[in-house]
């Protein structure tokens, strides 16, 4: 395969030669390794190498894009550019058309465009694999079964444009999930860590602690309960804001929780009384991510014309006030708003509130429930951002500062915005992995939240 940089230059050269009015070429070089296990045995695994190439070609007011995953060399990218140019010439004017980003306006890259891609391979799993056989033995000794998944992905992106941009970024992404279940299925516990080299023994210890809690089963009815929602659960609920409520155009259309009755958006409105700040920042320590826009196709919030633009820290909520919605430049210009791109991390903090760890918050709880994680979270009503979902792999009953047993699972109906409105205590923000959306939104920092009246709509028999 020819180097990624050569693919970029060949594509740009082909576009120029064919008379395109602009062109962007993105090449993503990926490597991946994973292992999966269940029932105290390894099940599947894999190592993969990939290359994804996207081209954006502009002809007059029209734009066309194409992407290919596979070995794309000089001929391949030239063919892609030629086909896209023909498509662009037939396309109606692009709604998101904007001047391409100049080299002088582009984001400063963290690595040189000339550097080769970074890679991973199966050896990255050595620590996990070497720990597994002992973990399986310990699980059998406890009459329990372990299941889980460990993966690492390293992707290097190269972005070049006909306006002189040459950017590159490498992004490692990793996670280890571990589930322990009692052999009779009465108890289940989960721990997830967004890293490929966590201490599997420490994860195991937490699993055994929780399965010990589950030896006493306490049946509870549906209703509203004081709940400690751990950082993993907070990730998944805040992710629904990120996915479903931050679109500027959708909000202006009137279809999100941040739409204003009678038209417009709620930007500038105080949403929460506690000073929550929900933000994305490519430079946030521990969750660093790509500091520039890279888009192979446009959407209502992201534009191919914005490729290469810097991604500054963006506060979506700032001290409880709705501060920003997501727009590409054309959308922002049309709406008189500030452009705000998608950024691949999400952080929630609350001023000086620091309630400590989940264990600290449990110790301050007279009567309540400690949740482990949430699952199958889906929108019921976008106007209120009411989500439904379920508790999973451990709901623990707290009495007088201690966990005294495990309760049944519940279906909940809750809005993440309302959770922020009603939260009465905020823990220390930590690097966290969402159980449901962690595979899509891996880079998060979230606190635990105390919710005084979490709406458990019905009991789920799942255990």
């Amino acid at each position, binding site marked *: 395969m020819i180097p990624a940089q050569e693919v970029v230059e060949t594509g740009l050269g082909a576009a120029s030669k064919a008379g395109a009015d602009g062109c962007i070429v993105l090449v993503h070089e990926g490597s991946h390794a994973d292992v999966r296990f269940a029932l105290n045995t390894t099940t599947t695994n894999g190592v993969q190498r990939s290359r994804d190439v996207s081209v954006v070609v502009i002809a007059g007011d029209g734009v066309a894009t194409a992407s290919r995953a596979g070995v794309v060399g000089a001929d391949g990218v030239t063919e892609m550019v030629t086909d896209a140019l023909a498509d662009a010439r037939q396309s109606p004017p692009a709604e998101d058309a904007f001047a391409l980003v100049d080299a002088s306006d582009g984001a400063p890259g963290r690595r040189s465009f000339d550097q080769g891609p970074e890679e991973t391979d199966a050896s990255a799993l050595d620590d996990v694999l070497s720990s597994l056989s002992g973990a399986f033995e310990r699980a059998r000794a406890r009459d329990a079964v372990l299941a889980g998944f460990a993966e690492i992905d390293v992707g290097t992106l190269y972005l070049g444009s006909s306006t002189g941009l040459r950017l590159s970024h490498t992004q490692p992404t990793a996670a280890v999930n571990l589930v322990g279940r009692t052999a009779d299925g009465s108890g289940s516990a989960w721990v997830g860590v967004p890293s490929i080299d966590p201490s599997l023994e420490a994860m195991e210890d937490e699993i055994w602690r929780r399965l010990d809690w589950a030896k006493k089963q306490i049946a509870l009815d549906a209703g509203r309960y004081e709940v400690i929602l751990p950082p993993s659960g907070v990730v998944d609920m805040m992710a629904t804001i990120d996915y479903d409520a931050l679109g500027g155009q959708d909000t202006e259309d009137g279809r999100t929780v941040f739409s204003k009755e009678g038209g417009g958006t709620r930007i500038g409105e105080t949403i929460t009384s506690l000073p929550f700040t929900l933000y994305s920042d490519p430079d946030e320590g521990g969750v660093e991510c790509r500091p520039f826009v890279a888009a192979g196709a*446009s959407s209502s919030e992201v534009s191919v014309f914005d490729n290469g633009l810097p991604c500054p820290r963006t506060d979506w909520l700032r001290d409880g006030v709705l501060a920003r919605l997501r727009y590409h430049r054309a959308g922002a210009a049309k709406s008189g708003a500030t452009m705000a791109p998608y950024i691949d991390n999400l952080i929630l903090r609350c001023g000086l509130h620091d309630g400590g760890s989940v264990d600290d918050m449990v110790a301050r709880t007279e009567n309540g429930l400690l949740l482990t994680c949430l699952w199958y979270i889906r929108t019921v009503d976008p106007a209120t951002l009411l989500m439904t979902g379920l508790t999973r792999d451990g709901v623990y009953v707290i009495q007088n500062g201690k966990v005294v047993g495990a309760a049944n699972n519940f279906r909940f109906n809750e809005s993440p915005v309302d959770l922020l409105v009603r939260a009465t205590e905020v823990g220390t923000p930590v690097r966290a992995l969402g159980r449901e959306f962690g595979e899509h939104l891996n880079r998060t920092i979230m606190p635990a939240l105390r919710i005084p009246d979490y709406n458990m709509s019905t009991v789920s028999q799942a255990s």
Partner: protein
Amino acid sequence: MSPLAADELGALTEAALDAASGCQAAEIRVERVRSQMLRLHDAQPETKADGTDFGMGVRVIDDGAVGFAASVDVRPEEAARLVRQAREMARVTSHAGGGRVELAPEPAHREVQWSSAFVVDPTSVPMADKIALLAEWSRRLDEREVVAHTSASLLTVSEETYLADLNGTRATQQRVRLQCQLEALALSESGFETMRTIAPPVGRGWEYLTGAVADGNWDWDAEIDRIPELLAEKLGARSVEAGTYDLVVDPSNLWLTIHESIGHATELDRAVGYEAAYAGTSFATFDKLNNLRYGSPVMHVTGDRTVKHGLATVGIDDEGVAAQSFDLVRDGILVGYQLDRAIAAAMGFVRSNGCAFADSPMHVPIQRMANVSLAHSGQNGPSTEDLIGGVDRGIYVVGDKSWSIDMQRYNFQFTGQRFYRIENGKLAGQLKDVAYQATTTDFWGAMEAVGGASTWVLGGAFNCGKGQPGQIAPVSHGCPSVLVRGVNILNARAEAGR
């Protein structure tokens, strides 16, 4: 219809399978998958994406363990290298401990050429034609006063795949599918409402959008014409009073309930615990085979990979197993599961029923859902109107929207596109803010009647998720209208504390 020329596939096969000599099993898959996505907002193009995935993956069973490796570099020497890499992965994971993996036997199918039923590959139609069609439909909606905004989307996929295994099967296959949706949004002082088309995604070609309705294609004109009036009625509908109601569920909604509460629950890999860390397990555990009362005696459910235009329909699955049709629930009793070769062997079945699928050459095949369908009650069975006529106080549910179910497939909650009050056997206007919630066996146990053949529709989804790394699969679910007694109805606004 082949991802590569025959001689190139032959060279890859020879290189891979020679390197796999001595393995208990091995297969190489070469795939070219083209996927397009078009989205319009207010009749203007918003997203245009056209992508092609091309690569190969090899899976081996060696030393009693699975090894998988994949690459976009599709050359014979790379195929041999991938096999060596996969064998090393199998060796390493075998040493991590646990049981040995065996595959249920499958006869060799030799040379197989198979294609799904279509006239025009939808990915071959110029993007400009697609934009023009969706823009015209969007404008027809936009012209109506009640409609404030429209969105339209079209997903089209064409798969060309090749599989060769140590068993001697050489399968070359092509499938196409498409999904088209239009949605209109209306605003009022109290908020907004939407109404979306209920045309199901199908394993058909471009003709599904432009062809004659008499040939089984969708009547888009009729549906688009109705959307604004349905939306206006919904906008003025009264909010539902929470409580217990009898439901008549239209196939456009019921397919998703089947998918979640039967389709996933009867995947045997889930039922025995292989998905415990992610997708979940199942209440329909293996010890309940042939004795679990899943639903009422009128409930008959099959799995198949054979139904014409089905999204999960194939000739040969991704482990070299021929497509089949099989019972899952008969007379309301659980009588079967969906299987791949490993789970079939592990649980004592003589053969897989062909439910292995990988969504890309870069992913290992896992057990994925067949087309899981509820049988109708025959040519003389009741119409939807007949079912409604048997309800004094109830709700008629049409179209899917929101869905959620727990990790053992007990407790579910669904919404829909529109809900109608039923009063004394007649429809009495739309309701809004409706969600229905039930436990799987309670819901199906309360199914009093299923509609006749005239009510049966093949619905489905493009995007069923499972596995780690995550994979998506297309799957169809055929079903008639049904009557279910005594279902818990929630008011979504009340649940939100409004």
